[in-house]
């Protein structure tokens, strides 16, 4: 419950969401804190939430001295925030004392002091053992009592007395002209001063909180936007976030297979932020829908903030390209939050995102388009907003997908201010050639992954987005019909080529075949010659044999043949016939 800062100043947690982070542990314990601001800026609520949270969450009963509203009015006012003041009073955790002075029924004569106030306050504190006190706002006394001198010295005494009493007090004060409070309460309460403010910018109200002073402690010094909604006050310390978020190595699909392929084959990094810039009608929302669809398919939770289309319209439109977002909504995986950008100020949008993100524990957040918020603020505001969105999404580990509408001509320059904040930046462009408009997609950057440098044609089909390679012709990039024509041309070319190839093959084959025929012919001739040769040889042999036989028979007939059948060769010689 107690949190000590480095310097050892004891602090009391307020329980107000975000404030304890900025103050590094809450308000100074045992000291008064001045909360000032204009009418309707949430001073009373701030004080009451401080008391209620103290009583319900930190076991510190409280006393509320209201100088303006009755206890019943206060209870009614904060009932919508879930604060049950009457129950807290019944259970002795809270005392509300309404102190009012009606100048018309009071006459002043002679000296007096405000001991009655002290007595009432002390009695109230003692009755519940209060540790927290709200005075809302003692400045009302200035309207009821004419002796300002007495009043001032008594207030000074009161704040001193509160310190002595050791209660942590919140004192509210209406903002005066040129001064923090109308009657200079800041002179007496100097330990901690918190300034609340609400400004109207472009018809939207933004509430801001700033810690003007916090004696003895470091604190966030920026102006922090805050919001009053059904959860009470929420301060957003998002601007104070550092670059300390972790980085996941996990990759998640873009929902478009071809785009996954372009992004190193695996898609975006989980927890990264993706910006899709394009002019009107380039398919930005569709890409977002694909991404959401892919997340829901994985069973993850997603939120789609739509600033242009109602949930029903979005679901219907996505159905036309084969994406059924309705079933994810029914399953509770997808929450589509649609609001006109002008409904609230920038900060309010941010806070709603915060709440929804926490509520749905979303893994994937799509903001379509983030540029819708831009007209609501200056370039600086928008940069700050995007920075905060990116930071808080990263802090929560959610993957952020933002679309941004940009004019074709200066697409890159307008987005420059936010481009450095995102990890993956995809550009969608329209090109107009040959009487038609076609979509092109390319990845301008994608941190930490090898990604394609190619321009792809982006097609919306009945089965979702498809990416096609584009053709680079002499006249530039070819898309759409030109690409189709080119593809047909290519096919024809291919056919022609194939045909030529066939012809040539055929010709060679024919030549080969004729050669083969020739070879066969020669072969046959060769065989014939060989046969002829064999025949000649056989003939010769036969003739020889016949001649020998003839000679033998001749010899025999001459009787010159011996018994052995061999003709005697007296001279060993034989004369040929």
């Amino acid at each position, binding site marked *: 419950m107690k949190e000590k800062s480095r310097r050892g100043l004891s602090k009391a947690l307020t329980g107000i969401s975000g404030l304890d982070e900025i103050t590094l542990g809450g308000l100074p314990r045992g000291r008064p804190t001045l909360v000032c601001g204009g009418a309707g800026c949430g001073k009373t609520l701030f004080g009451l939430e401080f008391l209620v949270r103290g009583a319900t969450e930190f076991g510190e009963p409280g006393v509320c001295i209201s100088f303006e509203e009755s206890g019943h009015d206060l209870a009614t006012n904060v009932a919508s925030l879930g604060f049950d003041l009457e129950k807290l009073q019944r259970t002795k955790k809270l005392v509300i*004392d309404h*102190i*009012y*002075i009606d100048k018309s*029924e*009071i*006459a*002043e*004569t*002679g*000296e*007096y*002091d*405000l*001991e*009655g*106030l002290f*007595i*009432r306050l*002390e*009695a109230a504190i003692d009755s519940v053992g209060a540790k927290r006190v709200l005075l809302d706002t003692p400045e009302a*006394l200035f309207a009821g*009592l004419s002796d300002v001198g007495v009043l001032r010295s008594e207030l000074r005494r009161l704040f001193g007395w509160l310190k002595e009493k050791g209660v942590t007090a919140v004192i509210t004060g209406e903002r005066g002209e040129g001064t923090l409070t109308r009657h200079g309460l800041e002179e007496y309460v100097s330990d901690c001063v918190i300034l609340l403010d609400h400004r109207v910018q472009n018809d939207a109200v933004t509430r801001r909180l700033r810690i003007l002073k916090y004696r003895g402690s470091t604190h966030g010094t920026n102006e922090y936007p805050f919001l009053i909604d059904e959860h009470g006050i929420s301060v957003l310390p998002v601007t104070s976030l550092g670059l300390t978020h972790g980085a996941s190595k996990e990759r998640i699909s873009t929902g478009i297979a071809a785009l996954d392929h372009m992004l190193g084959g695996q898609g975006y990094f989980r927890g990264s932020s993706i910006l899709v810039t394009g002019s009107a009608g380039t398919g930005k929302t569709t890409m977002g829908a694909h991404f959401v669809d892919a997340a829901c398919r994985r069973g993850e939770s997603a939120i789609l903030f739509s600033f242009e289309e109602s949930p029903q319209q979005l679901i219907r439109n996505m159905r036309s390209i084969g994406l059924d977002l309705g079933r994810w909504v029914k399953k509770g995986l997808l929450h589509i939050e649609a609001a006109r950008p002008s409904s609230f100020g920038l900060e309010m949008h941010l806070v709603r995102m915060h709440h929804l993100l926490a509520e749905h524990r979303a893994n994937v957040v799509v903001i379509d388009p983030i540029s819708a918020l831009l007209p609501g603020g200056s370039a600086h505001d928008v940069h700050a907003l995007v920075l905060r969105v990116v930071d808080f999404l990263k802090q929560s580990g959610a993957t952020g997908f933002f679309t941004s509408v940009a004019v074709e001509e200066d697409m890159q320059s307008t987005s420059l201010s936010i481009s450095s904040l995102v990890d993956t930046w995809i550009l969608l462009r329209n090109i107009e050639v040959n009487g038609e408009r076609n979509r092109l997609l390319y990845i301008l950057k994608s941190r930490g992954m090898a990604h394609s440098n190619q321009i792809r044609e982006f097609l919306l089909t009945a089965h979702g987005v498809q990416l096609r390679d584009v053709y680079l012709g002499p006249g530039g990039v070819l898309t759409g019909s030109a690409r189709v024509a080119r593809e047909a041309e290519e096919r024809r070319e291919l056919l022609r080529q194939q045909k030529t190839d066939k012809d040539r093959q055929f010709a060679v084959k024919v030549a080969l075949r004729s050669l083969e025929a020739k070879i066969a012919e020669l072969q046959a001739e060769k065989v014939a010659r060989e046969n002829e040769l064999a025949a000649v040889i056989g003939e010769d042999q036969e003739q020889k044999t016949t001649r020998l036989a003839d000679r033998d028979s001749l010899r025999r007939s001459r009787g010159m043949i011996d018994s052995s059948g061999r003709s005697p060769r007296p001279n060993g010689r034989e004369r040929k016939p």
Partner: protein
Amino acid sequence: MKPAKQTKAKTANKTKPAEPRYDLRLYVAGQTPRSLQALSNLKKICEEHLAGNYRVEIIDLLKKPQLAAGDQILAIPTLVRTLPKPARKIIGDLSNTERVLVGLDLRLLR
């Protein structure tokens, strides 16, 4: 002194058949010089202007702090005229008799 006064006022009330016309309460916080001053001033004024027709109750908030809220007491001392209606409050030590008389609507009586 104060309790005595209170009892005296009450007994006076009981013994008298008619209700006193003026019902007054003086809120103090302990016996401070200012409280005593207020009390003596009040006594003097009452005796002078409302003789026999008043009742004064003195409430010491140090002893009964819970009574402060009922009459919306803030300043000390405070004199409250509960009767006749409407209620009137006079804060301070009642040193300015004229203003006290105006505050109590007694100026008309004379």
